[in-house]
């Protein structure tokens, strides 16, 4: 695999595009883990596809070692909409530190002149993309839920209680983070081997070292779980303060197991210490949009609804018939969850 310099890359991508020109080229900032491109990153590719019909999509993967190479190979061969995979291979990018990553994207943008840079709205994209935007002196548009046009986007404001449509009018590139749940990934057909995207190494020889030493990665305390990822699960079972304690929360986990579901929680349940905080669903936690969302002992504060009201089917079980959660629930059951959950556990069919 020949290493090409960024100058050569620029020639290949073509002349400098301005916001006025119709030519759309997008840099998708990818994430990978264990030799695979993350699902959230594929959502960003889906979003990039909807920017324009003839969008040329370059996917950036950075990191080091075999995991990076495997992810790049998969991205190049299995995703027909990706026209190029850029690989930045260096230990500097092993951990998602904002400072070197922002510099990297800035460097690639300066030479590649993309009209759009897209990342998914996870903690990775939210941390890095605004920093890149500042380096490029442009306003980023975060948490996009709908792309109306290559420069018109819809994003929720006020905890999802209003939708704001914005038109980007800047001269620089348009930087977006997109909500994964709003850009579902289409199933991949494995017969597209004929059209393999080229993999290019990013030339890091001009990479400025100055900002790298200012932050150091220490550790990641991850919550290991065998259940599906909350952000992408088909079914989510959530518990609130009504569960009363961490012991009772185990019923939610049992129910989730039976349904093959992910477990979510409200802020009240997290603050009370029932579960770790990465399970929080809401304005400041995760935003989910599963096919089925079951809420037990959840009152339905607006900040919580912001994180789940795009779910296809919402089920609420609460003692209080006046709880706001019933206003968004498709099926509501007024009752004591300590009776309802065991009954559900008993009567639900075994998952396939």
């Amino acid at each position, binding site marked *: 695999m020949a290493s090409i310099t960024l100058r050569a890359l620029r020639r290949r991508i073509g002349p400098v595009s301005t916001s006025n020109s119709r030519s759309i080229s997008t840099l998708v900032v990818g994430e990978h883990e264990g030799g695979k491109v993350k699902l959230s990153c594929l959502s960003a590719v889906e979003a990039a596809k909807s920017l324009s019909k003839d969008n040329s999509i370059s996917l950036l993967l950075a990191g080091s070692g075999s995991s990076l190479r495997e992810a790049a190979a998969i991205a190049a061969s299995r995703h027909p909409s990706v026209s190029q995979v850029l690989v930045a291979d260096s230990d500097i990018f092993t951990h998602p530190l904002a400072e070197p990553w922002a510099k990297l994207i800035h460097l690639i943008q300066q030479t590649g002149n993309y009209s759009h840079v897209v990342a998914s709205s996870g903690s990775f994209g939210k*941390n890095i993309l605004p920093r890149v935007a500042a380096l490029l002196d442009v306003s980023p548009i975060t948490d996009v839920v709908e792309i109306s046009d290559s420069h018109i986007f819809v994003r929720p404001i006020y905890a999802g209680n209003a939708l704001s449509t914005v038109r980007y009018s800047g001269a620089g590139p348009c930087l977006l983070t997109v909500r994964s749940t709003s850009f579902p990934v289409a199933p991949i057909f494995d017969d597209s081997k004929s059209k393999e995207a080229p993999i290019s190494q990013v030339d890091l020889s001009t990479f400025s070292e100055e900002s790298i030493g200012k932050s150091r990665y220490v550790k990641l305390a991850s919550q290991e779980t065998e259940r599906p990822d909350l952000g992408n699960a088909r079914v989510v079972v959530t518990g609130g303060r009504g569960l009363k304690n961490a012991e009772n929360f185990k019923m939610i986990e049992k129910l989730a197991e039976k349904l093959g579901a992910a477990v979510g929680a409200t802020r009240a349940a997290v603050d009370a210490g029932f579960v770790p905080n990465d399970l929080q669903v809401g304005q400041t936690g995760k935003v989910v949009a599963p096919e089925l969302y079951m809420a037990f002992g959840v009152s339905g504060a607006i900040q919580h609804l912001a994180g789940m009201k795009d779910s296809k089917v919402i089920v609420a079980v609460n003692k209080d018939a006046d709880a706001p959660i019933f206003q968004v629930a*498709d099926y509501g059951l007024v009752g004591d969850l300590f009776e309802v959950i065991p009954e559900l556990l008993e009567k639900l069919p075994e998952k396939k």
Partner: protein
Amino acid sequence: MKIMVAIKRVVDYAVKIRVKPDKTGVETQNVKMSMNPFCEIALEEALRIKESGVASEVVAVSMGPAQCVDTLRTGLAMGADRGIHVEATEALYPLSVAKLLRALVEVEKPGLLILGKQAIDDDCNQTGQMVAGLLNWPQGTFASKALDVLVTLTINYEKMEFNLLMLFGLVKVHWQQHRGIHSELQKVVLDKEKQVLTVDREVDGGLETLCLDLPAVITTDLRLNQPRYATLPNIMKAKSKVIKKFTPKDLNVEIKPDFEVVQVTEPPKRKAGVMVSSVDELIDKLKNEAHVI
């Protein structure tokens, strides 16, 4: 070390907002406004660092219309030493705010800039990252555990080297003692000063720990701390604290947004649901009507 905290005046989190009929925005007239909850957490953290002896002063900064002074007074009543108000009548977006903050950092030279992770009105989650990028400072976003600020000093006194690793307050005492003893020599040189901050960040899937060199930018997550209430005596005291005024022009910052809001609409309403009376009915509906299990 001085800490600067950015605070924003927003529609109170408990208010059920209404979209204006002409779709130009959200109704903010005659609506209760408060300090953005994440900003309260940011200010609380700054005050705690000061109380631990690491920082000497906490400066609260707010940008926007004249009423932002009320928000600043709230911050001063919580314990901030003084305030800065950048009065701007036009709408401010994160990029402009970040530029104004950079300009203020150049005036005030703080060692730490703390912001909330997002404002609950525009839900942008950008300003902290952007100002860190503009200043070329390291960033610790979504901080969720008390910040641990350490100061390492290497003092080169003639040929002797002292390596001290301790809290800044203590170091300051030692430093003054050295100066006092050898004041006539004037040869105590602060050779190298390295200040470090450890931050635990809430990320998807867990807690990530980073170590940042100061000066740095921190944005706060919900669980970092429980903000204090302003007591009545402190509210009275806050009235006499100084709030300095600037305009974007004073700071040489041009406000020109590179995007425009086309319209603001209400989100689509969900169609009314049904109440079921038993678990059996619920399972039946989910299976045969919604087809989700």
